[in-house]
């Protein structure tokens, strides 16, 4: 049997017996994804529950308030503005509506409605938006009644009407915005962090435990040894990334609490998008495995390796985090994004899940991934062949 394959099989066997690898590379990605999906889903559902935030108003005889009472808002009458303020300060009220004295313009009086709320409280902002919407609807209903009374159609209250007309770009069915933000980020992030659990052990750990020298005196060449270790690391990184994906698929199938809103458009996983995703993920995983191997080979011991890995993690984390927000910027359509490692993969996985793959961008991303992976593994092999690096303890 090829020595690289023997080293690979042994590394995989050891990894599977290591609790740190089982939890860090397989269980944690799934668990984190499930938690995040449920958490974001809960937040999305909470935001959607408009009628549940109560609105307080200071007692008034204004007829507009009588009309607003007919809306679905939960309204609570209070005696004075001072009471309203104390309720906001104690956190018992989100929005207090005060009808002030109207402003007199001679032949016209302008109603003044003052809205009191904590502007740092998200739920207060939501309550304000709900109230404004209810008020707007009430005013529109009033106008419609007047128009109808004058013999005009009620549609005259809306001189301009906007109609949504979505245009299908790409293959069509795609994931929801939240899934598009979350999934590429998770897949890329866990492709790197999944290897953490074993990276410090794979060479630095062998130096520290004095098993490396025994391996070096076998007929296997150093290149064969390092390739075996490289493919083992790559396998763990890939499996970790896939664990994150399985977590999301499980959340979708199991209909976990709070995930309905998030999953209503599906995950965007079609046979084509999966193939495209794997085509980008494999070079990235190889690149990550190469980097982890370089760090582990250079480090004197496991502790030193872990210190370096924490620093490298930051370098990977920044583009990965940015990939989550890229949909909110106009950068996703700019070609230079495809030249930035990590970010390009996340961006193109996002496009694949949307069914909007740009094959020039895809090719550039895959090409850069392959080149970087080749550079990383070449450096790792060279370092592994240098006795100065390998035997520094």
């Amino acid at each position: 049997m090829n020595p690289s394959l023997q080293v690979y099989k042994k590394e995989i066997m050891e990894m599977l017996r290591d609790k740190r690898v089982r939890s860090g590379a397989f269980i944690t990605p799934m668990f984190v994804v499930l938690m995040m999906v449920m958490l974001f889903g809960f937040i999305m559902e909470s935001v959607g529950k408009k009628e549940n935030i109560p609105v307080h108003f200071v007692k008034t005889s204004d007829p507009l308030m009588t009309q607003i009472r007919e809306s679905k808002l939960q309204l609570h009458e209070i005696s004075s503005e001072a009471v309203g303020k104390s309720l906001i300060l104690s956190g018992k009220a989100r929005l207090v509506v005060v009808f002030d004295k109207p402003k007199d313009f001679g032949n016209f009086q302008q109603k003044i409605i003052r809205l009191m709320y904590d502007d740092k409280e998200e739920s207060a902002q939501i309550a304000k938006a709900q109230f404004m919407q209810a008020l707007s609807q009430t005013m529109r209903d009033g106008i419609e009644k007047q128009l109808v009374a004058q013999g005009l159609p009620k549609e005259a209250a809306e001189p301009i009407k906007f109609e949504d007309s979505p245009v299908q770009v790409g293959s069509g069915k795609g994931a929801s915005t939240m899934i598009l933000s979350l999934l590429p980020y998770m897949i890329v992030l866990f492709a790197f962090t999944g290897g953490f659990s074993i990276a410090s052990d794979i060479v630095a750990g062998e130096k520290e435990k004095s098993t490396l020298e025994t391996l070096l005196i076998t007929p296997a060449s150093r290149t064969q040894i390092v390739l075996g270790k490289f493919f083992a690391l790559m396998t763990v990184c890939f499996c970790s990334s896939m664990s994150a994906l399985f977590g999301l698929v499980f959340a979708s199938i199991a209909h976990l609490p709070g995930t309905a809103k998030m999953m209503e458009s599906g995950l965007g996983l079609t046979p084509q998008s999966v193939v495209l995703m794997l085509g980008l993920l494999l070079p990235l995983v190889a690149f990550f495995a190469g980097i982890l191997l370089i760090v582990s080979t250079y480090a004197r011991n496991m502790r030193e390796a872990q210190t370096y890995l924490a620093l490298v993690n930051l370098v990977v984390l920044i583009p990965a985090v940015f990939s989550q927000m890229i949909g909110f910027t106009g950068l996703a359509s700019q070609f230079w994004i495809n030249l930035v490692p990590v970010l390009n993969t996340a961006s193109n996985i996002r496009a694949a899940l949307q069914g909007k793959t740009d094959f020039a961008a895809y090719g550039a991303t895959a090409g850069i991934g392959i080149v970087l992976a080749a550079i990383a593994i070449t450096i790792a092999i060279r370092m592994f062949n240098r006795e100065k690096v390998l035997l520094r303890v």
Partner: protein
Amino acid sequence: MDQRCNPSGSATVKPLATKMVITEKLCKHFPDPKKGLVKAVDGVSFQAKPGEIFGLLGVNGAGKTTTLRMLSTVLEPTSGRATVNGFDVATEGEKVRGSIGFMSTSTALYGRLTAREMIAYFAGLYGVTNSEMKSRMAFAIDKLNMGEFIDRQCDKLSTGQKQRVSIARTIFHDPPVLFFDEPTAGLDVVTSQTVMEFIEEARDNGKTVIFSTHIMSEVERLCDQIAVIHDGILMGQGTVNELKTTTNEQTLEKAFLKLVRFESTWNRDTEVARS
């Protein structure tokens, strides 16, 4: 004769004879930012033949381990030449490594593999085929009395059991040359005895054994030939009796101290007068 390397590192090398282990003016120098150039091994020459235990005797840091590391191709010699089983350590590394077994107390086992998996892993790397594996495994288990723990993870083995697994790993592929780097360091008397008996048996089976130690009693019991190394330099070579005769000393310990030019800083008369 001064066997040390010339400053340029280009030692004059003669054609090597057909012995199992031959070193000629072998040198290993390391650049050190604080100490400058460290001459860990400086012009060491010796030869070892089959059926012989060749001892490398020296204090800690003398250069014994570095010499063995060069012979096992872990380190590349700075200059000089060495062959193992007729193969050059600098140019035929794979063949050299295929000809040797290496054991040391500092080399550990993979904790999460069982003893059987550990032995089989290295056997595979040494090219032992699956058909040979079964019979050799049975022989090793029986020979080293490993039946009780062969399927137990190495992390859970006692020191003595680990040492037996190491021995099995070292001999499993039946190499003609065996290197032992302080194989009894840190072991109890019983386990040390097992190791030494194993080394004697290897010699009796015609293996060439290179045995590095600083323990005089082990040298006197085991070694047919000895090379005394100090500060990377070969200070003397011969049988135990030859070293005693050369130095005109009664014990190997005294002969060794004379060869390494040890001077005691403790003056007995002065200390007695003070007390």
